[in-house]
């Protein structure tokens, strides 16, 4: 009896985590869009080349961050209810 209850709670929790992970997957690209337009707010100054290097590092840094977090989320994600790959006829 108690065993059955335990396993049920465990399942619920796992299911809950999966759902929140999917929510995170949905939010992440929106967040990414915002991060990538932030540099537009920087005041451009043609004489100040320091901004160039900063922009370069910022853009590639955000890029790497987006990839890394997506990879971590993809590892945790259980893509169930996928129909089986169609066999070759």
């Amino acid at each position, binding site marked *: 009896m108690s065993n059955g209850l335990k396993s049920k709670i465990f399942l619920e929790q796992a299911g809950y985590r999966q759902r929140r992970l*999917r929510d995170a*997957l*949905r939010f*992440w*690209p*929106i967040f*990414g*869009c915002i991060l*990538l*337009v932030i*540099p*537009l707010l*920087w005041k*451009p100054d*043609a004489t100040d*080349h*320091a*901004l*160039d*290097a*900063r*922009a*370069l590092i910022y*853009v*590639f840094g955000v*890029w*790497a961050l*987006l*990839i*890394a977090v*997506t*990879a971590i989320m*993809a590892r945790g*994600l259980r*893509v169930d*209810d*996928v*129909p089986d*790959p*169609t066999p*070759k*006829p």
Partner: protein
Amino acid sequence: MLGFNTVIAISLCYVAILFMVAFLAERRATQGNATWLHSPLIYTLSLSIYCTAWTFYGAVGYAARSGLEFVTIYLGPTLMMIGWWWILRKLVRIGRAQRITSIADLVSSRFGKSTSLGVIVTVISVVAATPYIALQLQSVTLAFAVFAQTGGQLWQDADLNATAMWVAVGLFIFTVIFGTRNLDANERHHGIVMAIAVEAVVKLIALLAVGVFVVWGVAGGPAEMMTRIDSSDVVLWDQNGGRWVSLLFLSGAALLCLPRMFQVLVVENADERHLAIASWAFPTYLMLMSLFVVPIAVVGLDLLPAGSNPDLFVLTVPLHEGKQGLAMLSFLGGFSSATSMVMVATIALATMVSNHIVVPMWLSLRPNEQAVMSGDVRHVILLARRLSIAGVLFLGLVYYRVSGGGTALAAIGLVSFSGAVQILPAMLGGVFWRGASRLGAAAGLLTGLAFWLWTLFLPSFGVEALISQTVIEQGPYGLSWLRPQAMFGIVGLDPLVHGLLWSMLLNTGMFILVSLVTFPTPLERLQGAQFVNVFEHSAAAPAWTTAAAGAEDLLIMAQRIMGSEQAQAIFEREAARQGKNGFLPEVTPNFVELLERELAGSVGAATSHAMVGQLIGGSGVSVEDLIAVADEAAQILEYSNRLEAKSSEQEQTARALRDANDKLTALSIQKDAFLSQISHELRTPMTSIRSFSDILRDGDIPLSDQKRYSGIIHDEAIRLTGLLDDLLDLSVLENGQVMLHVNTGNLGVLIERAIGAAGGLEDTLEIVCAPELAQIAVTTDLDRLVQVFINLIANTRKYCDAEQQRLKISVLKRDGMYLIDFVDNGCGIAPENQQLIFEKFSRVADGSKAGGAGLGLAICREIMRRLGGDIAYLPGQYGTAFRITLPK
């Protein structure tokens, strides 16, 4: 010194290796051990055709001209990929559920399998892809020219044009060989996918190698590189906000809308789970491709003389530094980028052109034609694809010549992208909004196409090429609000942002507006519900309410498209699922739906629907049927579905029982007939034997008559013995007391033996044996097998009613079995008799002609079952056809 001829030789070697890779992959796939071809790695690498020559050469040029703006082209797809849960997952699921073959097919299928929408999307895609293909040809040509120049020759236009043409011809050959080899039900091309995966690795390594050389070899390390970047003239960050955001949107949307990306993302996707891995792996690839772009641009501007083309820095920087090997690698990288893009793009476009333009036209030109043969539509499609590939490449060449190949690479690419994304509103609207209608989609697409042509495509040929300077400055006929770069009098916008803004805005606006005010047809609403709710496994009402067509007609049609083997397999599977024997299942609405979907995998939804509709008689879905799909009825539907699932099992049993009962009734009638028949058969010879022996006994007759009478008695006795032998043979076989003498023999020889024994050589029956027969050795009881062959050949002679009797014997291998087909040119056997002919004592023709007791086929079947195989009637062959199944 790397001579020009060496470059040509190395390129040819490289192409030969690609041929080999593609060929091996195809062979592995046909042998069935292709699991590694369906790995997430190959999937991710195949996505890399996003990085074309435009990336390989153009990105550096772009960075040299506009600084960091070039990354937007790779950041847009990155955002789209990491947001895969929103859109891509749904597209892939729909693509699988609906057997989508191309982006035109997706749009057409969603909006009621509309042929006209398919045509519109195809036209947009072809027009938008043309500049891009031209761009690839141009970049390969320019790269060759660079090597020619270092070899001392300065190329003129004629050399460039000739090279572009030869590259196009080579690509045509490769694509036709590996892209149109077969008409896969799900449109996967293993050879091509493997080749582009290899090319993906080559181009990444090449660009990274040049980058590493520039940073560590020329600049002296990352820190020095950063100082160089800071002190260079390239202004990295001077962004126009409008362009930055527009380009992010444009490139993200292009990932979905470019026909070649749709092909690799959705059509060639083997497993939805691969998306989860590609969601980070593909952005990583893009980032690596972009990583060294700025350093190469900065160093190129430093090292090379002013006025050098920055689009070729990837090639010219290593050459300038004397690194011949690196330059060669870089050349191969660019070559890979261009060729892989062109191959996939032409396949995707050719599929669209053949499925949505050529085949509908071909079918409408010959309505209801009866003189058809198995696989004829398939041949038309394959031919149409080959011609379309040539056509698309030719258009690319024409654009290259007309545009003069002068415009900067980046500009051409963006024009092409903005054309392709005109499909976005119809596609996303169709996938997420059930209210989207066919007319709305058409209105949006046409509006977008018109604005894109006017504001971006036509001006892209250059000033005075197609549009004169006065029109650009003052508008056509002096209508200043129609100026291509200042529509509606709004001036001061960047031309690209301007064109994209107006075309997308009006495209989306028209799409929504017309959708809101029109009323969709029932089929549109049905498809809309299936697309939008693809994740909710509710079974929708089938689009066919009555199924009036005969199974045999459907089989003939399916064979025209898929070829006989695949079509027969589908019908056989369905028949087995329904619990029936043979090849002809009951034609239920669900089966028609399934068949239509299978056919859609080859010819697209619209054509498949039209062809099935022709047979079924247009009794498609009605408004009443749709009530079942409406939301309020969903729960009732769910419940009834569950009931249906339960009752379908009972239905299957009932159907089997009904069949058995029918058979028993028919048999009992036949048995009664047989008893009188057999007594008749036994009595007739007996009577004549008795009367003639009476005469002989009385004596006193001439010797000649004596001889004749005893001859008659002898013949009749032989007939009696034969009949009794048959009966005995059958009872022995049925009781399983038969001894098998297993031997190995050549099938061709056995058939020859049977023809000889059946007297096949001496009369009018013409027998055509397939040459493969002679290559097959079988191990079984050879005498028994020959007995079956003899029986079938003798049957043809007896029953085939054609003037010039002809029998075709062929063999196939499938699932460890040999399938030996005997097909004659007679009138075939009526469906109600097809099951019965194998029963004992059954006879279709009248007895006088047959001269037997109807035991032959029953004996054949018993023999084949003893040998571990079977014999069955094969319908849909325009004649009487039997298929013998024999284990290997």
